[in-house]
């Protein structure tokens, strides 16, 4: 059988190297499009052959690598990883199309970095061995660092270094957690292994409760910094804002933090010495992020920075839902990742277009753009509505699942989150009012609407937001299967 | 048979002279010479202990060390020659551009 997962991971990485060799923009973008479309086709094939009724890993590939240390080449996807791979595979071709006519320096490097990020991100989702997982995890950092520091905004150096060091420190803490898990499990079972499913199943045999808590806390720290949620979010607004549009989209495609929580932390959580504490930590950072991000976004003047803070707010739903311990809330949190990826990519594209055509993103300097950019206005209103959680769009499914599911066990946190909903609506609508509606600001000069490629790419993602909002089952069913699996673990442990 | 203590004592004296020279002199050549002194005091120890223990390994080490010292001297002098050509001095105090 075709090693389909390896292909999906390797095609972008190989094409990234090939793209570096191209000379012109035309060659580079064509190369990137070919690679991303190939990934999309393979992913669709995988998706249609995916059995969403079982929680096991599928399309597994496993080869021995370094047997003495227990390192294997082990790939596979389950219902947590599949939607995220799908998300990357869907959005990336349209991201390439979105940048189709842009002028920028060294396009070959630009497209190579996009492909490298895609390959690394999918690698994280597909890896079932901590060795591979960590390699891909760190590999996502590098292209994004260059993306921000080469094509970024005026404050790019500060932002890129802050992003790199901050998240790298978190990765190192996570690595400590991985080491702890590896050695403690080695000690407990007598065999060295970095295999993720194996380690997850052996965690309960570790003797020391303190050790187990430390391992989970270290892993959790690495993941929530990457998400990011309050109070470890401060790299994010800078990085998202300073990155070029494609970079910002890649950032939101990189759902590895939440993925780690669902895939690694939640299965370990019931076996720790103090699961109640962990659940409260997750729920508290979630609920505070939701309301904190909303207020911070309300205070922003820069459109893109506002979007960045809204992302903090949305990510709060991920940890709150994960802490909810009801299959509905956990799958809602997973769906929030998927939904957030779609919504934010269009929002960042919109803000990128506004910045390039109007020359500013300061909302008070804009105004009345809908008169000159009707197509963008339609798409932007739709995605802003999705972002504020309007029913019929993906954001609502995620939010209502998280809120309803979490209320069963965590009513106080949900009430905090509910308070933020009006604020969320307020900053979205106010942003629309200041940018799109009202009197056109004549000082902006000639404003042209989005071109065909941009309309196509943003429009199709917007349609997907609507489609998955009306019919979430294609991705939600597999999430539900997996979250029920996690919850059944909890039930066994009586958490 | 001369007792081992005398060899060690001599080596200590030579080493100390070399160390004193290295720490007080400013001229590159003198410092290089002081380093040679310290090296040779070590060589002396090696040879002395070798003969004391009736084990030739120490003497082989001493030979290596002498060869190394020769190389070091050659490279050192070459560097000092270059420095002298450029700056007309070999006072190493004026060559602190590697600080901080």
């Amino acid at each position, binding site marked *: 059988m075709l090693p389909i997962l390896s292909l999906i991971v390797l095609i972008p990485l190989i094409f990234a190297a090939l793209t570096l060799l191209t000379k012109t923009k035309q060659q580079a973008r064509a190369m990137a499009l070919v690679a991303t479309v190939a990934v999309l086709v393979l992913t669709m094939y995988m998706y249609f052959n995916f059995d969403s009724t079982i929680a096991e890993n599928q399309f597994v590939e496993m080869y021995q690598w370094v047997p003495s240390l227990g390192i294997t080449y082990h790939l596979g996807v389950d219902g947590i990883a599949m939607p995220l791979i799908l998300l990357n595979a869907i959005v990336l071709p349209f991201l390439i199309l979105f940048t189709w006519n842009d002028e920028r320096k060294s396009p070959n490097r630009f497209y190579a970095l996009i492909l490298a990020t895609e390959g690394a991100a999918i690698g994280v989702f597909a890896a079932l061995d901590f060795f591979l997982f960590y390699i891909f995890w760190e590999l996502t950092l590098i292209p994004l660092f260059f993306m921000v520091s080469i094509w970024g905004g005026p404050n790019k150096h500060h932002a890129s270094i802050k992003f790199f060091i901050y998240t790298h420190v978190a990765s190192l803490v996570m690595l400590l957690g991985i080491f702890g898990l590896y050695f403690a499990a080695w000690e407990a079972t007598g065999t060295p292994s970095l295999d993720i499913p194996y380690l997850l199943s052996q965690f309960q045999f570790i003797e020391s409760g303190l050790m187990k808590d430390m391992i989970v806390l270290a892993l959790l720290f690495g993941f929530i910094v990457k998400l990011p949620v309050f109070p470890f979010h*401060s790299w994010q607004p800078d990085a998202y804002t300073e990155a070029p549009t494609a970079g910002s989209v890649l950032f939101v495609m990189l759902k590895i933090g939440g993925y780690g929580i669902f895939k690694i932390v939640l299965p370990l959580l019931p076996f720790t010495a103090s699961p109640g504490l962990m659940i409260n930590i997750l729920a508290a950072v979630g609920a505070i992020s939701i309301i904190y991000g909303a207020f*911070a976004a*309300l*205070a922003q003047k820069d459109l893109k920075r506002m979007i960045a803070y809204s992302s903090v707010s949305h990510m709060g739903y991920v940890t709150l839902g994960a802490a909810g311990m009801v299959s509905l809330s956990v799958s809602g949190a997973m769906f929030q990742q998927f939904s957030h990826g779609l919504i934010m990519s269009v929002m960042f594209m919109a803000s990128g277009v506004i910045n390039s055509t109007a020359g500013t993103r300061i909302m008070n300097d804009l105004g009345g753009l809908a008169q000159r950019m009707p197509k963008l206005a339609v798409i932007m209103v739709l995605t802003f509505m999705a972002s504020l959680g309007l029913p019929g769009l993906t954001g609502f499914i995620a939010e209502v699942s998280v809120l309803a599911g979490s209320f069963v066990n965590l009513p106080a946190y949900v009430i905090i989150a509910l308070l933020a909903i*009006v604020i969320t609506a307020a900053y979205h609508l106010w942003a629309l009012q200041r940018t799109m509606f009202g009197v056109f600001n004549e000082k902006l000069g000639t404003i042209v609407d989005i071109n065909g490629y941009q309309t196509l790419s943003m429009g199709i993602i917007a349609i997907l937001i609507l489609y998955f909002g009306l019919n979430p*089952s294609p991705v939600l069913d597999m999430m539900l299967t997996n979250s029920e699996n996690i919850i059944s673990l909890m039930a066994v442990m009586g958490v | 048979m001369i007792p081992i203590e005398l060899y060690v004592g001599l080596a200590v004296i030579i080493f100390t002279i070399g160390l004193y020279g290295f720490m*007080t002199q400013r001229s590159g050549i003198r410092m290089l010479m002081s380093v040679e002194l310290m090296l040779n005091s070590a060589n002396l120890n090696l040879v002395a202990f070798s003969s004391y223990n009736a084990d030739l390994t120490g003497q082989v080490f001493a030979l290596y060390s002498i060869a190394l010292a020769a190389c070091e001297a050659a490279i050192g002098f070459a560097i000092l020659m270059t420095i002298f050509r450029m700056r007309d001095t070999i006072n190493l105090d004026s060559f602190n551009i590697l600080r901080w």
Partner: protein
Amino acid sequence: MAIGDLAFLIPLLPALAFVLTFFLGKKLPNGGAIIPIAAIATSFVISLLITLNLLQNPGEVITQSYSWFAMFNLGILVDPLAAVMLTMVTFVSLLIHIYSVGYMSHDRSQSRYFAETALFTASMLSLILSDNILQLFISWELVGVCSYLLIGFWYQKPAAATAAKKAFLTTRIGDVMFLAGIVILFSDLFKIFNGTIPDGVFIMRFDEIFAHIPELAAMNANILGMEVSHITIITLLFFGGAVGKSGQFPLHVWLPDAMEGPTTVSALIHAATMVTAGVYLVARTFPMFIAAPDTLLVVAYLGAFTAIFAATMGIVMNDLKRVLAYSTISQLGYMMLGLGIGAAIGAEAVGMSIFHLINHAFFKALLFLCAGSVIHAVGTHDMRQLGGVAKVMPITAATMIIAALSLAGFGIPGTIFGTSGFFSKDAIIEGAYLFGESSGMWIPYVLSIVAALLTSIYIFRLIFMTFFGKPRTDYGGHESHASMTIPLSILALLALFFGGLTSRRFNDFVSETFGNNFVNMNIPELAEMGGYHLAAHVGHEPVLILWMPLIVAVAGLLIAYLIYGLKVVNMDNLVSRNNPVYKLLYNRYYQNAIFTDFISVKIIYEGFAFAVRSIDRGFDWVVNWISDVTIETGDSLRQFQTGVIQTYATAVVAGVGLLIVLIKVIMEVI
């Protein structure tokens, strides 16, 4: 095939019309108005046929459910309550659409207008048809967003964009309460099912919810030391949603501002597609309300208060549309009061309230469309500049007077002679009397009577100032086109005769809502659970009480005629900035200053948001501080690199010495 199988088409056709008009409208004449008109007309025919079918057999309601995701479903439920609402909404919406063809003919964005109104109608229809609370909430939100788009239809005008935002956000406060209610309801049901919901059970469906009312009522929560039943919390939160959508105090502030949209949009919002949603929600979940101690009393009091509160402001407004807006708020207060007095008369209250809702839809749509006709013709909506319009626009004037009579509630008690508004409002006021009699709480009754007087005053003030007397400015104008006047005439007929023709049967029909093959509730038993004592039926009140609404209506007409028709009192003395009462009313009790300027701008934005931004900078500062400290440490440590070889040599010697000492010490210790 039974007509009921087509029920799903009722919201679907307007939704399809939205898509078609949105993409193709620009290429068609009149912005593609024909598409939504045809779609809504078809929906109306289906609704009407279903209603007629149901009238034959009210026990057999139409239900269809399909699994959506997790334990949620999508489905339709057409029972008597839904059927009458569907028929009314499709009918009024159809007339407004036809009217809009003429009204919007000069607007460049006609196709966008018709697309959005079609979606608006579709959302409202889907809200009415929902068989579960989640779908109802989804449609509820869609209604909200459509109102946002339509109020901000002329988005180039900053005032319109602001009003749209305000409407959305104000109703959103209510929506959050509604959502909180749903969330609590979900978690309670989840616990009742012990976390395992069997396949095929949709826990958000109304029959499922109603079936568990006793368990919900048995759950208690401790809030600030008070034992409160969960069902009370849930219903109060639902009512909070209704307060937002249906413009009850204190979330009514968005409704008057919503006038920034086209007048036809106001008509849609006020009559058919939006504000009635709140009343409908309470009516739909009435079994929960009546089983919840205290909730219905809150509904009754707040409804009565809103009725009089809004009416006082209606008296001083000079803007034609604003008077009507406050009138809507006031009438919605009556509807809520109608539901609240269910505490005394049980399920009949739903019939009464919905009856008033339907009649209100007719006369309020008529009032707005007439106002639109006037505005369209003369180009202003300031009543002080109008006067004598009746001479140039006779049809408009005649129909508007009919609507005013209906709103004020003219009719003869005990007969079938009377305007539609008379029958329904009279019933509610009498219900309030019964409520007072059975519970000893007379405040709602008194408020509703005074509000009726004020209603009559403000609406005839509007009539006299606009249509009679001499023109105050030279406005020109002419009677509107037939596409506008025909809908007016149809609505006028309904505003006159609908109530009289249907009154009793309507009530009986809607009261069947809670006893059929879908849900079969024992309302008196539930009322006992809620601690309410149901009284006898309406219609046995003292004669004075029966005549009272008519007396105040006539009194209001006379007062308005004396002041604004004959001008026996010089209003200029009263209407001045020095009169504190006038000032208070004219400034709308300073709500704008309190809600917009103070709460949202000062507290939320400049207070919380700026505080959070400062805190956020604090976090950023900590991160940067760590990096600065690292750099500074490196800076000071590198001072050791002097570049002087002797220093390094000294350090090496010192280090070796230290090492020797250390080894010595360690050796000794060991």
